[in-house]
């Protein structure tokens, strides 16, 4: 731990009955970074966040935020931290302004200051029009924004975001991402959990992948992706195209046999570099092989998981041998 460490945790453990939801996680987040915790449902992401936020007792291990011990000084921790959960934690019976005013008052703002802060945050989060509407009339995106606004009243230096965009439409998701980047530009440190690789990729400076309560990998998004493998070019050949010839042509370009599915005339081409996709298409055109459709698939969270853990994100394969690749990318 250095003076610029925002979150420092070693050997965190949380058990529910006999089940270890978090099973010995180490975590170091530097000040001013966006740190992404990536994992499927039930991996232990939320449980870990709750322990760090004093919302769940820590069974074993140690954690500190800005050098303040989480277990010993929970009240100080709560003053350093804004938490936005998976479900909007605002009062449904109050209006947006009343919610923010109440949270401001509870945190020691004078009534007039609380009102001014509420006004400023509502403007910042584009909620002015809805300021005096009951939350029950809010859309999902508006609730999330209000929820995040409520976490920022005292300008805490550290923000926890638990799946901040789950269930949001793409436009609202983009807005949320911009907001998160603004926070960091202001000097905040952000620890977020997500189920989406592209979200972690877009936002996070560093990512750790969590599976079954353990950290299975950590690194920058690029390190993580290159450890997983690269994109795939998916080709649908037109009816009557010579599939054998197509496979040969593609093989010559990428130096590796593509995977053919003859029944459906589909071909999956592994790509080292995305530029290769253009070369493949040009070669096919020159060989006069017609194509019905083309797409480039990014590695999905499922593929990342398969590569890192030897099982997919689904619940169906709990019996598979636990093969945690102790893959630590630095």
């Amino acid at each position, binding site marked *: 731990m250095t003076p610029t460490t*925002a979150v420092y945790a070693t050997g965190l453990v949380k058990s529910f009955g006999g089940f270890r939801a978090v099973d010995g996680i180490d975590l170091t987040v530097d*000040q*001013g*970074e*966006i740190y992404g915790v990536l994992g499927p449902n039930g991996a232990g992401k939320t449980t870990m966040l709750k322990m760090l*936020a*004093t*919302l*769940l*007792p820590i069974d074993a291990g140690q954690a500190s935020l*800005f*050098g*303040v011990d989480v277990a010993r*000084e929970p*009240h*100080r921790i*709560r*003053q*350093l*931290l804004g*938490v936005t*959960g998976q*479900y909007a*934690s*605002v*009062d*449904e*019976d*109050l209006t947006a302004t*009343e919610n923010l005013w*109440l*949270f401001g*008052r*509870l*945190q*020691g703002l004078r009534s007039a200051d609380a009102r001014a802060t509420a006004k400023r945050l509502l403007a910042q989060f584009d909620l002015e029009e809805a300021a005096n509407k009951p939350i029950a009339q809010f859309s999902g995106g508006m609730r999330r924004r209000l929820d995040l606004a409520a976490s920022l009243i005292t*300008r*805490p*230096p*550290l923000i926890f975001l638990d799946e901040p965009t789950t269930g949001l439409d793409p436009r609202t998701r983009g807005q949320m991402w911009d907001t998160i980047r603004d926070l*960091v*530009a*202001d*000097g*905040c*440190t952000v620890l977020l959990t997500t189920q989406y690789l592209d979200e972690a*990729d877009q*936002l996070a*400076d560093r990512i750790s992948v969590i599976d079954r309560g353990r950290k299975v990998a950590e690194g920058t*998004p*690029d390190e993580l*992706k290159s450890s997983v493998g*690269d*994109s795939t070019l998916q080709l649908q050949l037109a009816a009557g195209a010579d599939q054998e010839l197509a496979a040969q042509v593609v093989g010559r370009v990428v130096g590796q046999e593509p995977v053919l599915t003859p029944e459906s005339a589909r071909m999956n081409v592994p*790509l080292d*570099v*995305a*530029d290769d996709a253009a070369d493949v298409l040009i070669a096919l055109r020159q060989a006069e092989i017609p194509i019905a459709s083309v797409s*480039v698939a*990014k590695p999905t969270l499922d593929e990342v998981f398969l590569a890192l853990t030897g099982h997919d994100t689904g619940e169906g394969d709990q019996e598979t041998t636990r093969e945690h690749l102790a893959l630590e990318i630095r």
Partner: protein
Amino acid sequence: MSTLTFDPTPTTPAATATVDPAAAVARAHARVSPAETVSQTLSMAWRALKKMRRNPEQFFDVTFQPLLFTAMFAYIFGGAISGNVQRYLPLIIPGIVAQTVLTTCMSTGVQLREDMEKGVFDRFKALPIARIAPLAGPMVADLVRYLIAASLTFVVGVIIGYRPHGGPLGVLGAILLAVFTGWAIAWIFTWFGILARSARAVQGYSMMVLFPLTFLSNAFVPVGTLPGGLRTFVKFNPVSHLVSATRDLANHGVLSSEVGWTLLAGLVVIAIFAPLSVRSYKRHL
């Protein structure tokens, strides 16, 4: 891969950084001061009052029960127990006051349980506030409900012919005592509310406790008419003491020892159940 690469966000705080972690750490204090606790409790009370105003059905029990029960019990039992309704009123009105205030306590617990299941409680837990504030706030707001319940019972009583000899001061004293006792006992139900799995369960437990306690007391009948064993129970039943104290104040304007015992019992209940509730609430996280 080009679709995946992304210009990394600036990770160093901008020149105009407004958030200073070191200053925030230095500012953060280790405990909530008593003054902060009071202010936070009052903010929570404000929230509860707002909610009451927006959901007026929360006032149904404290208005209908005094109206209905006072008139109903007076006219049904009056003749049988005291010879006529007029003579029964000094007995029954303080009894109904006690009963109404106790049933109002029950809804304190039920509403807390419902409230705790809402998302906003997650935020209350994460905020740097006194743990007692989210519990005590709604209870402070509930003082309004106890006040309505107790006052309305007396008003209905006076309308149907009750003439309290304790005078306005005696009645005022009786109302205040009932409000205080109700508030004290509400801590028991607050504790139930935290422990129970659902609002329905709170209601179930509470009825089981309250129904025997209010009926097996001197609230509706003179104790002399009861068989021996039951009479002993009634004598020790705390509800009987509240009823007697209310009668002493409203009917005779006397600050009797019953009043003292009731106040003491209320303080004891608070001293036990307020810390117990806070402890359970902390564990409930």
